[in-house]
């Protein structure tokens, strides 16, 4: 469950054809097979967050479609859940209540909810912190709660909007490793938006490199390096150089 198909997706803010409208996405198409990890790489303002918002059902596309297992995404829901950069944890709920929130919305009975919640709290390494509130946790721990909360509802598609951008460099690298570990234990189709080349290579099976606005897919790259990914590996460095050149081109175009 979780084959993502994006077909001829465009998004225009304001009325098409009039002055002042903004074309955020133009004719984006790509597919992510079930249980693959895909990164969308691009500069800020390339429409990558717009793409994610449409995939989450927060915004409708102007033309084209996003479908998961041939079911078009129309409204937000647990099937295609999102993890936010600022974690978006409910401040009035403790860790268990946050993780269990989606299960409660699904209408699961209390004892089942407790079992599943415990499983995911353990999985993200937060056992012992069940009763803590978000304001008592560090940034990295808050993002763990957000990951557990999203995984607990068993989404078909997991969307992540620069989830580690607010963390310091060491924590970010550690959380990336953690995410891979969690994802390998509970495979999901993941779409992660990032502007970090290293993050994209470290995590993904495929990378969609976006152009500057209007956002299009500049290149779709499959990454078949063995995990865990070694940053000093020759192919890793080669891919990194290649991605850097692609991104650099976009900056150059923008400057002119």
């Amino acid at each position, binding site marked *: 469950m979780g084959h993502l198909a994006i077909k001829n997706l465009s998004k225009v803010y304001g009325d098409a054809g009039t002055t002042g409208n903004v074309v955020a996405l133009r004719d984006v198409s790509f597919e992510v097979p079930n249980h693959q990890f895909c990164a969308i790489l691009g500069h800020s303002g390339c429409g990558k967050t717009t793409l994610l918002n449409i995939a*989450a*059902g*927060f915004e409708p596309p102007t033309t084209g479609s996003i479908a998961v297992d041939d079911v078009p995404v129309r409204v*937000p*829901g*647990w099937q*295609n*859940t*999102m993890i*936010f950069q*600022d974690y*978006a*944890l*409910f*401040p*009035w709920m403790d860790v268990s209540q946050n993780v269990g*929130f*989606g299960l409660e*919305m*699904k209408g699961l009975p209390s004892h089942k909810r407790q079992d599943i919640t415990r499983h995911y709290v353990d999985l993200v390494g937060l056992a012992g912190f069940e009763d803590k*509130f*978000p*304001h008592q946790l560090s940034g990295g721990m808050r993002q763990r709660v957000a990951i557990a*909360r*999203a995984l607990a*509802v068993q989404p078909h598609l997991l969307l992540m909007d620069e989830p580690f951008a607010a963390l310091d460099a060491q924590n970010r690298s550690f959380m990336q490793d953690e995410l891979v570990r969690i994802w390998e234990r509970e495979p999901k189709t993941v779409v992660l938006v990032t502007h970090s080349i290293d993050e994209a290579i470290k995590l993904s099976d495929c990378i969609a490199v976006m152009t500057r606005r209007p956002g299009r897919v500049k290149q779709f790259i499959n990454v078949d390096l063995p995990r865990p990914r070694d940053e000093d590996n020759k192919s890793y460095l080669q891919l990194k150089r290649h991605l850097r050149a692609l991104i650099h081109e976009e900056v150059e175009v923008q400057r002119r």
Partner: protein
Amino acid sequence: MAVLMPAPTTIARTAAGMVASGELFFHLAASLKREAAAFMVAATAIPLGIAMGWWRLVYNQVNPIMEILRPIPPLAWIPLSILWFGIGDAQNEFIIFLGMFFPILINTIVGVKNIDPNLVRAARSLGAPEHKLLSRIVLKGSLPQIITGVRIGLGVGWMALVAAELVGANSGLGFLINDARSMLRTDSIVVGMLTIGLVGLLIDTAIRVLGRRLLPWSLALSR
């Protein structure tokens, strides 16, 4: 001079006498009862404020009426309210209600509008239907601001209460100080005024402490 501004010792003596005779508590209880009754009705500002903050349509329909009524001071309603309700509890409570209603309403609206939009999106993305969104996210998220509104509302209501009792009551702290005036008992007036001030402070502190107890997660209330 001693009549216009009594000595602290006289005030203390009078206060002790009024406590001992039960007079002070009788009037205080009457005032508190009105404040509480008015609050029960004014609390309708909370669901209305949530509806106005959440649905633009409701806001657009209701807000113009509120904006016209709001600047009218509660005291300006006293003449009309006496004709409506006569002299007594209902009229007093109506004036207090007017003082409480708008601060609670406006703070509730602001509270709803200031909820982090990502919290709402996160809840939707976890499958929350609209009614759960309202009860679990919107109401909870705006509670700190609602409590601030209640604090301000109870304060304004308390002030309006005394004014209402000056004119249209035969019990209560407002009545007490006005009654004392007619007998030139400035010492009783000052005791009444101090009681009004102290009890106002107590109510405010109680709500603040309660807010901090109930919403330990709120940074706004913990300050």
